[in-house]
């Protein structure tokens, strides 16, 4: 086998040493730093993008939370306003109701007063009529006039009895 021909060993070893050292230097100086740089840069960019995405996600969450809070605040405010309006309306209605019933009471009182007066007048009229009637009846029956005072007293007494 040609591999065991010792005479060709030194040249192969020499050229292997030369080429391998050249390869090593080329890899260290030229090829490997380029690949390493690109890989490092990519890792950095990916991490950077991830960090940015995380920040944006945080922002979005904050915005959502702010929106939720605003909505809740608005709802509470609206409810407060609705309640205030309702209370005001209730108070107004109650006030009007009170005013109305007072006016009605006044009218009722006035009317009652008028009724009582009319009644008293009527009762007084009845008495006078009764006195006149009694006097006339007395005169017709007995043929003599009766003292109006006596007639009045008699009518009053009878009216008291009849009551």
């Amino acid at each position, binding site marked *: 086998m040609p591999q065991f021909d010792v005479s060709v060993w030194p040249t*192969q070893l020499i050229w292997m040493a030369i*080429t391998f050292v050249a390869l090593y230097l080329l890899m260290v100086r030229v*090829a490997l730093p380029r690949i390493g740089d690109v890989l490092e840069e990519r890792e950095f960019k990916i991490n950077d993008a991830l960090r940015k995405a995380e920040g944006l996600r945080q922002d979005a969450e904050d915005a959502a939370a702010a929106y939720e809070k605003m909505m809740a605040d608005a709802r509470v405010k609206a409810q407060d306003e609705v309640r205030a309006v309702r209370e005001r309306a209730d108070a107004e209605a109650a006030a009007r109701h009170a005013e109305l019933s007072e006016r009605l009471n006044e009218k009722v009182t006035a009317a009652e007063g008028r009724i009582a007066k009319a009644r008293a007048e009527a009762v007084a009229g009845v008495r006078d009529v009764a006195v006149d009637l009694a006097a006339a009846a007395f005169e017709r029956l007995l043929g003599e006039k009766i003292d109006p005072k006596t007639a009045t007293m008699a009518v009053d007494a009878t009216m008291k009895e009849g009551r």
Partner: protein
Amino acid sequence: MASPLEQFQIKKIVELHVFGVDASFTNSALFMVIAVALITFLLTFAMRERSLVPGRWQSIAELCYQFIADMIRTNVGSDGRRYFPFIFSLFVFILFGNMLGLVPYGFTFTSHIVVTFGLAFVVFIGTTVIAFATHGVKFFGFFLPHGTPWYVAPLLVPIEILSYFFRPISLSLRLFANMTAGHTLLKVFGGFVVTMGLAGFVPLAAVVALTGLDMIVAFLQAFVFTILTCIYLNDALHMH
């Protein structure tokens, strides 16, 4: 017809003698230079765009880089990172040496025992130097693993020492034997294609299949050589 072993013949291209030593530029040296040039060109060409999203060639270059980086990380650990350029160079040198041999008219410099032994010897000397630089005299404890009963030591220590010194031999023989056998087999079957005439398509199919197999072997042997280097390096840095 040429012998299947003729492909391993060293042919001088330029006669050269330095201090009485034959340093001629041969076909073996030519393919070493081609390998180095091709590796450097392919890697720099692949990375010329330095794009964030890699293209086809850039992916290959990055894959190679990360393949070796991961190998060192898992087998050696973080303190193996400074040896990354050497291990990367070793891997691509052997890989391209193996693969260039599969190109027609190519020459496989990794099929020469002196080349594979040279590489293995560099690894052996390098790891031994690193081991003594890291652990000093304590590295001799490597040959007597912890918890070994004292009465086994006289037997175990020579075995450990022997296996340690056998490392460069097994490392270089494995690569040399695989490459030589694969290429010889290809040539033998290639010879059958010619001699069998019309029936030659049978060995031709075998040659096609064997070429595929040899590609796997070419990669696998480069991988095995490199990963064993990593394991030896780990032994040197962390002992057992």
